[in-house]
């Protein structure tokens, strides 16, 4: 215990958004001058709880207390962001809140500008930013445009913004998701210095190694509730994980073995072979002037799931989009079977046997205003028109039949083909995408974050679909931010870091211990990459 007094106390917090109950009776106690990890799986309600603390939402019920400068707790329930800032609570959001066209200093002082003679005192802004930056080791040039900064630097600007406003309580939402290992190490240094200087820090994360590395105490959330509180030095990754998922962590291991077992019995070659259904060679994809995908080669055989593990933002999105035909390729080749599809259109790739479950169903995978039936033909619309009798018109009878068939096969609920896709739950929306992509004929499947934001029942359904597709001889390239998902499904695991594949391991050798360092850019000491 760092200190006897509390900096934050949240009690009985309930918060709903429509029918989604993000927080149901959550509690949080954070001691002054400590680094407190708030952990839980995606959707556990961590971010919501912290946004309530930062005044961005008001709780439905419950109380929020924050220590005043005197050290006494004060009821601040339902305060505004401005109040929170004034009281020294600062939040660094997962998605940066920075104005790209302004300089670092302008971003930092915005809303609290130093003024001299009615004018913006730029000199003082620059000086203040430089001074705070030096004090805490947050290196970034105050005169540079934010749009030109790296993600690591941008995050430092976010922290500078809160410190400039005199934050004593700092909330960081998944701060390492986009950072390189070196930047993560620097961030830990900054946070420790801040704590030693008297600040209280709440760190939202779902990564256990971070929790163990940096925190003093831990609060675990599951399904909107607080399920455990512990001292970090008394906790183990296993005990935290157990609290996070609510069951024995060994379960994940069992699922792994199961996946591995079925793979082995299939007895299909593991590495690239002439039979590869998908092969990518030396692929380079540019994004915003950098090599987002930097010379990736991989191949997936029929009846195989190749899982791509890695911290998000290391080129996975660009890789998948390039293979799918949604992003231009700078160099390299993409083959489906024998056919070079590097420059083929989306439709030609589909015709060549490619199916694609995109990572963002709301943006790409569905036209939310379209009916379930219309969404079930997206990408296939040309098959439902044409012919002598209907040159242009879509064939409603066949569209309806297709919808009835797939709604039943994939158990889409409610079973109403006329409903707009928007009206369905996340899990059922994803089933529309799965039904469309996996219900037809294809040889190669790109599955990008296939279970993101869906409920447990749908996760199991989707995993079952992917396994049976493998049994049916499909080649599957799976990208997931959830390492457990990769380990549960993949036959081989490739680790992506900084736009490259830094290692490819057979499932048997892919353990969390070994993948973890690889995902953060450390070289694989155990064995050279396969």
């Amino acid at each position, binding site marked *: 215990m760092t200190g006897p007094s509390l900096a934050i106390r949240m009690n009985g917090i309930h918060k709903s958004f429509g029918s989604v109950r993000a927080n149901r009776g959550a509690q949080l106690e954070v001691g002054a001058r400590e680094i407190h990890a708030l952990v839980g799986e995606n959707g556990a309600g961590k971010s919501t709880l912290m946004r309530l603390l930062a005044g961005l939402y008001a709780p439905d019920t419950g109380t929020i207390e924050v220590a005043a400068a005197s050290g006494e707790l004060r009821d601040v329930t339902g305060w505004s962001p401005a109040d929170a800032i004034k009281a020294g609570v600062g939040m660094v959001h997962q998605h940066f*809140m920075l*104005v*790209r*066209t*302004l300089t670092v200093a*302008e971003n930092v002082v915005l*809303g609290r*500008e130093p*003024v001299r003679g009615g004018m*913006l005192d730029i000199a003082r802004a620059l000086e203040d930013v430089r001074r705070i930056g030096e004090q805490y080791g947050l290196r970034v040039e105050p005169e540079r445009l934010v749009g030109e900064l790296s993600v690591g630097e941008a995050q430092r600007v976010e922290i500078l913004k809160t410190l400039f406003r005199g934050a004593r309580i700092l909330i960081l939402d998944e701060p390492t998701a986009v950072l390189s290992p070196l930047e993560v190490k620097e961030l830990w240094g900054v946070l420790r210095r801040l704590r030693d200087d008297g600040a209280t820090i709440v760190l939202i994360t779902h990564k256990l190694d971070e929790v163990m590395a940096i925190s003093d105490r831990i609060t675990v959330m599951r399904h909107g509730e607080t399920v455990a509180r512990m001292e970090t030095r008394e906790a183990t990754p296993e005990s935290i994980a157990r609290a996070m998922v609510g069951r024995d962590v060994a379960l994940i291991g069992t699922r792994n073995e199961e996946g591995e077992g079925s793979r082995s019995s299939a007895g299909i070659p593991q590495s690239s072979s002439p039979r590869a259904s998908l092969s990518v060679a030396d692929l380079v994809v540019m994004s915003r002037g950098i090599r987002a995908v930097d010379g990736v080669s991989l191949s997936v055989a029929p009846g195989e799931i190749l899982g791509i593990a890695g911290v998000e933002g290391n080129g996975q999105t660009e890789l998948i989009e390039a293979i799918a035909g949604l992003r231009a390729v700078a160099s390299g080749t993409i083959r489906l079977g024998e056919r070079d599809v590097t420059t083929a259109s989306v439709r030609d790739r589909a015709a060549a046997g490619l199916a694609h479950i995109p990572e963002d169903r709301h943006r790409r995978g569905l036209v939310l205003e379209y009916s379930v039936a219309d969404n079930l033909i997206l990408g296939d619309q040309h098959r439902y028109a044409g012919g002598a009798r209907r040159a242009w018109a879509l064939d409603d009878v066949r569209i309806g039949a297709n919808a009835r068939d797939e709604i039943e096969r994939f158990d889409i609920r409610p079973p109403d083909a006329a409903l707009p896709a928007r009206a369905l739950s996340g899990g059922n929306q994803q089933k529309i995408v799965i039904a469309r992509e996996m219900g037809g004929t294809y040889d190669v499947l790109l599955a990008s974050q296939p279970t993101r934001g869906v409920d447990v029942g749908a996760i199991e359904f989707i995993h079952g679909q992917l396994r049976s597709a493998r049994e049916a001889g499909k080649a599957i390239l799976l990208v997931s931010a959830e390492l457990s998902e990769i380990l549960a499904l993949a036959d081989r695991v490739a680790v992506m870091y900084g736009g490259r594949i830094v290692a490819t391991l057979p499932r048997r050798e892919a353990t969390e211990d070994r993948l973890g360092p690889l995902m953060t850019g450390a070289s694989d000491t155990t064995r050279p990459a396969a």
Partner: protein
Amino acid sequence: MSEIAAFIAQTIRIAIPYLFAASGGVVAERAGVVSLTLEGFMLTGAFAATLGSYYSGSPWIGVLCGIGGGLVFGVIHAVASIRYRADQIVTGIAINLLAVGLTRFFLLMAFDSSSNSPRVPGFGVTGDAASLTGALLRNPLVWLGLLAIPAAAWLVHYTPFGLRVRAVGEHPAAAETLGVPVRRVRYLAVALSGILAGLGGVYLALDQHQFTDSMTAGRGFIALAAIIFGRWEPVRAGLACLLFAAAETLQIQLQGMQGIPSQFVQMIPYVLTIVAVGGFVARSTPPAALGKVSE
């Protein structure tokens, strides 16, 4: 020598309404609100100034009324597009139609004419080129108009309000998290554009000593073209205004000579703007949140 002076004087005379409207419009656009409305603001300003000057006998009361007219329309536009989240392009068009309709309606009501008002006290003196220069120098609105662009540049780049305007037009959510009152900043920016564009109309009416039906004749759109051609930078927008005005002056002075038809000179601002947004010269990137409804 006198020809050059006359050219400059005429260019400035034409440029003043553009400078007023562009200096206000550039602030509103930087705050994220589309300035399709400048034409309507100007027309209202011109009419209100005519009314004020006519009934009070003082052009200065006219100036105040013109400011008020532009301001009222600015507030209507702001309420519709900020409070009610109406599409800014649609409200812009509505504001312009409304301005034409209302000025025509009240022109008929006040002066019993569907074409123009009687002569009202103003600032301009009509006459030959030599006295034109003198008249310009004596017209306070000319000086105000020449100052409008530097003032807008100063506001946008060197004041706290300007920093907020730039932030709000680019990333309103980020500004919001820092406690910047996004809506208030936008209201103020649009109100300011109403006042300044209104003054552009005031200048037109008081320079000609009367209001004529639809007298702004697309000048608000030329100012908008200048803003875009100037890539949303006040000083560059001001230079674009002067460029467009110089082209018009040239066309007027070359009239009578066989050469380029006047219609082609009229097209210059519009063609240049299309060239600019096409990225053929230098990329012209609007503020990221321009025209987007903020939640």
